[in-house]
């Protein structure tokens, strides 16, 4: 039972709702999301067990980012059932927020503030007390030396590393990564691997345009074309050819 559910007075014993070892980290049944009259996501159904990695592939505008933002409780589903970390969305957004780490194209950091100040703000928003965790992460992404300079003076790669530290500051149970390796040079990629890579042991959803690369890390692969599920299979059964066919 996570701390928040206990505090919220959830006494229903044995409820799968927030049992610690919940089976499926993500459960989608017939998920739909519209953009005005057009469909952004139509009838997406999948189940991702805790600790596994889902790779989401597909041409631009297929709804990959929409799916990611929806899982991050930033977008409301228009239809279907969405359960993240055992909590149905959007009814129990509160229980899921703070347990999700979103790393997207935007670092979600203030350029005028330094890395430490940004992490302090993010920590306060998430109820993370003390600076032990943020110092640890700054060291992990090798940014502790330039942690007090405003971010606007840092390079895009460095900001992305601080963004990785932000994503992990509140120790999320689920990582949502939108092309995490963009803007990262090989050395930096190596550095963040234990944090957001397979080695981190967290449940992950990765949106990527590099089928071969992501195939190695994924347990489950979802192919989206114009918002519809074009392909949903275990990574083992797929090869790069099937994936490139997706982009034709």
């Amino acid at each position, binding site marked *: 039972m996570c701390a928040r559910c206990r505090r919220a007075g959830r006494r229903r014993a044995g409820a799968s709702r927030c049992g610690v070892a919940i089976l499926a980290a993500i459960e989608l049944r017939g998920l739909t999301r519209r953009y005005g009259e057009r469909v952004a996501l139509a009838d997406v159904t999948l189940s991702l067990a805790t600790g596994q990695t889902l790779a989401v592939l597909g041409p631009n505008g297929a709804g990959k980012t929409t799916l990611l933002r929806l899982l991050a*409780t930033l977008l409301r589903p228009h239809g279907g059932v969405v359960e993240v970390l055992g909590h149905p969305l959007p009814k129990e957004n509160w229980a899921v927020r703070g347990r*999700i780490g979103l790393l997207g194209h935007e670092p979600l950091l203030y350029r*005028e*503030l330094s890395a430490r100040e940004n992490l302090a703000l993010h920590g*306060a928003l*998430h*109820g993370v007390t003390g600076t032990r965790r943020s110092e640890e992460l700054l060291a992990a992404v090798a940014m502790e030396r330039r942690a007090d300079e405003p971010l606007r003076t840092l390079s895009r790669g460095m900001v992305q590393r601080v963004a990785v530290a932000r994503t992990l500051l509140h120790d999320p149970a689920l990582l949502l990564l939108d092309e995490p390796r963009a803007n990262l040079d090989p050395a930096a990629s190596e550095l963040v691997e234990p944090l957001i890579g397979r080695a981190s042991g967290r449940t992950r959803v990765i949106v990527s345009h590099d089928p071969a690369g992501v195939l190695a890390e994924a347990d489950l692969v979802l192919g989206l074309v114009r918002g519809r599920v074009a392909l949903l299979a275990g990574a083992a059964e797929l090869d790069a050819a099937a994936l490139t066919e997706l982009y034709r």
Partner: protein
Amino acid sequence: MSAPGAAVAPRTHVVLAALLRKELRVELRSFEAVPAMSLFSVTTFVLFHFALSRNTLSGDLASGVLWVTLLFAAMLGINRLFVADAEQGGFDGFLLSPADRSALLYAKALTLLAYLVVLELVAVPAFALLLLGPALWPALPGLLVVLALGDLGVVVIGTLVGALAVRTSVRDLLGPMISLPLLVPVLLCAARASSPVLAATRAGPLPLRWLVTLALYDLVFGLITFAVFDFLLED
């Protein structure tokens, strides 16, 4: 492999303090809003001097000029209020956290109030120096009361309209276009309330009728803003 325990949901005042610290730092380092507002107000007084070709003002005219200037200077603050959050992903960063949504409303309202107070620290003395006929000192206590209530009105409407207009394509136009009509009652009550205080002969008493109306207006729109603000964030 148990799911890592979630951090307990943060208490609102902790979040509020963090947001205010951020606002203070961002403003002190980028100096976007406050200097512009203060300079704008002094320049506007000079414009009024030439436009009305009057060396000193008092009574209705003085309070009118003062309040119109403060209102337009406030427009600059309202336009800048949410820009940093909209452009640098501040909204998403905040929405991802379990923090209470209205903490952002309180933080932004207090920030706008701080903008206005600093603005008035510059504008009111400048006004007294440049245009005000009667002495400022006897009028100051009454004027401060009206300024306080007027600022509340501007803060309530400004925060709501600032959030409404910031993520649109014509934000600098839409902000003032929507907030000015909504602020007319605030301007009306504030100007009527402060005109006897700035009277030429002796600083007269504050008209209670306008103060009460202004306070009620602030209260009603404060409740409305509180009720609808969250809908501006959720997607």
